[in-house]
């Protein structure tokens, strides 16, 4: 029973993707039909990497600062 419960979310995700993909594809303007969506993905990934790396550094500095302050306070 537990195994079935674990499989349900994954199966739902696959099913929803299969159903929604044609619907999403139908929304692409006819001028773009035949063009690859790969450039869009690359742009989104590049911008996501930039903000993730910057925020990662911000969080890393903040965490290290807190740790050092805690040790200095001891």
């Amino acid at each position, binding site marked *: 029973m537990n195994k079935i419960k674990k499989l349900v979310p994954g199966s739902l995700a696959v099913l929803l993707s299969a159903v929604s993909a044609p619907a999403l594809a139908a929304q692409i303007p006819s001028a773009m039909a035949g063009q690859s969506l*790969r450039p869009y993905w690359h742009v989104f990934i590049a911008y996501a990497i930039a*903000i993730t790396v910057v925020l990662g550094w911000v969080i890393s500095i903040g965490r290290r600062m807190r740790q050092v302050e805690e040790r*200095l306070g001891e």
Partner: protein
Amino acid sequence: MSTKGMRRAGTGLAVVGLLGLMFVYWLSFFWVSTEANQGVAQRIFYVHVPAAWTAFLAFGLCALTSAMYLWLRDDRLDRAAVAAAEGGMVFGAIMLTTGPLWGRIAWGTYWTWEPRLTLTLLLWFIFLGYFMVRSSTENPEKGKRFAAVVAIVGALDIPFIHLSVLWFRSLHPQPVVVKPDGPTLPGDMLTTLLTSVAAFTVLFLGLFMLRYALEGLHRELDARARRVAA
């Protein structure tokens, strides 16, 4: 400036830089026109080029403070060098990951061993070596001096990276902004690029100040540990 003042100024600059970065994202997605030849993929330019500029600024600052450290032996200069080197690694990582994403669309390949790419990757690894050298000696003072030399040698690579597209056949385009007869970018693209360069620079300066303050706290902790041990 005291550590507290440095933290306050750094936090303020970092917040302004992050807001600036959000504004750049808005400009890139909703305002700037799409380049005719490369299409939407050219928008990667607005994060890739400013990240590259900031990485070179950081590595250059690290080399400058390292050279001054070797001359004056002031510990604050070494703190600044470490903070700048870490920033260079972070912005260098953005440059080295966004570039191939653009290259795959523009050139049809993620990576090629052309001069500019090779020299930039070499620069990133030299500064990775900077951190390894720092921590590889038993005497921390010796580690600082060795690392300072690595930083100076590494920064010598920066002019070669800039000039490599002029000296060698390269897939990278020729300069479009920094050139003797002025920029050749259309106005809206130049505005977005310069705004992004400003945002990245302010963000770097803010985080550099915070990292410098953190390095100060680390040294305070080390000094206390030494006192306790003595």
